């Protein structure tokens, strides 16, 4: 990819990010933060690329830490967000209760 293409993609992504968040009700502030938090776990893509091509011990060790960190970010982020949003679902007839 040429540099200008890379810059174009990034700048457009930033503008979409600025526009996409409208007036969010406060009730959703925490889940939205948590979901975007999980999305930046996309750094896992980068961590996988560098670990795949790591040669020296230092690179391998740092790469493994990066992959563990990024995986935590992705998995933990999405699970925590889902748990929060699960609470918000309308329950006309409560099914089996998990929390007592």
């Amino acid at each position, binding site marked *: 990819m040429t*540099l200008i293409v890379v810059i174009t993609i*990034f700048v457009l992504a930033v503008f979409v990010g600025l526009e996409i968040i409208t007036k969010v009700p*406060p009730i959703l*502030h925490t889940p939205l933060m948590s979901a975007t938090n999980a*999305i930046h776990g996309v750094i896992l893509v980068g961590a996988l690329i560098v670990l795949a091509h790591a040669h020296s011990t230092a690179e391998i060790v740092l790469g493994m830490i990066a992959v563990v960190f990024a995986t935590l970010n992705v*998995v*933990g982020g999405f699970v925590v967000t889902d748990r929060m949003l699960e609470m*918000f679902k309308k329950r006309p007839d409560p099914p089996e209760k998990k929390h007592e």
Partner: protein
Amino acid sequence: MNDHWLIELGYLVGAVLFILALKLLNSPKTARRGNWLAALGMAIALGTVGFSLGHVETQNYIFIAVAVVAGTIIGSISAKRVQMTAMPQMVALFNGVGGGAVALVAMIEFMAEPGERLAPVPLVTAVLSAIIGSVSFSGSMIAFGKLQEIMPGKPILYPGDKVVTALVLAAVIALAVLPISGSTSIALFAGLLGTATLLGILMVLPIGGADMPVVISLLNSFTGLAAGLAGFVLGNTALLIGGGLVGASGLILTLQMCSAMNRSLENVLFGAFGAAKSGDHTTASATGRIRSYSVEDAAIIFASARTVIVVPGYGLAVAQAQHVVKELMEKLEARGIQVKFAVHPVAGRMPGHMNVLLAEADISYDHLFDLDEINSDFPETDVALVIGANDVVNPAARTDKSSPIYGMPILDVDKAKTVIVSKRGMGAGFAGIENELFLQENTVMVFGDAKATMTKLVAALDEF
């Protein structure tokens, strides 16, 4: 790679799903689907990268498998086990490790080619994403420590703190210039990471615990930006779009959180909110007297009440009192008393946090009211029951121009006929500010742990 366009297409599908997901996350009805869509986008992006790696040594595949499995196990177990009350610090923790991952990826990219150096633009973005990632990592860890109460929630200030922070910032800039201008020293790059980590710590220490949600949101935006910059280094579309989206949307969300508290971002970051000495505000109003009631005496007040508004705060959350409060609500309703819940946008420790906790206790939506909807009801309300809330009901926000929370929208509980405050002790709130509400003539204090108090109250209501 002749299937290059397929890889780009995979990333594009992932990116489009991220954008659609954020759109759905704007509304409570579709938010959960939005989160699933984002997870699907992530799965597609990760599947795609699996096909793009080219030749990889077998041992590297093993390293990847071990690291991914470890991260998945730790991540899913901790995310499933964490109490709803501890959600804010969990988000801080996951954000922090994300920032750490970005910094490490940038570092490895810098190390990878000692002979063939990175081109100027990727080099600059590698340095920037290393700095921002490190700041986000350490800043989030401090935010975690403050919310988990491993360290004091109050702003930590010391003489000359601003100078020290400025010097560390200068050191970060100086260290950043060297690799950009040609140094290939790995030790120096590691030093840059270390100094940026220190900067993150120094930036968050002087910020009070009450402002941690805003800090976490801002650091979340930072991590996104850093991940996007790492996309320049790797020429990777998924990183560029995913990171750019989060960097920008995270900033908008941060500003919305600030406006919910009627504060500017600058004031949150540099205002040392809550550092005001206690006593500054009490001396003027120390004329009042505290009326401390037993639970039984307080229960009698409900006997003649027709309308009750419950104001839950963080004290309710830490005591895990939400389920007992639901019981209390049922008891009161059985006596024909109308019960409403007034939820302040920043009740709990994160905006929206209280809604999550009350929903967990199965208190239905139609009982919950926002600040704007309910404030006009207080003057006609018999009893306002404040459970572990403090700053969000402090009338000083309306009246006292010298108060650090002046101008913050509050719940006007002081206008109710009787105010019952359940509180652990006379300590100041999370923001460290005294509250005149407790000295008001129509206010009754019931001291003790919120859950114990509510349990006793439920029992006392059966007596008559």
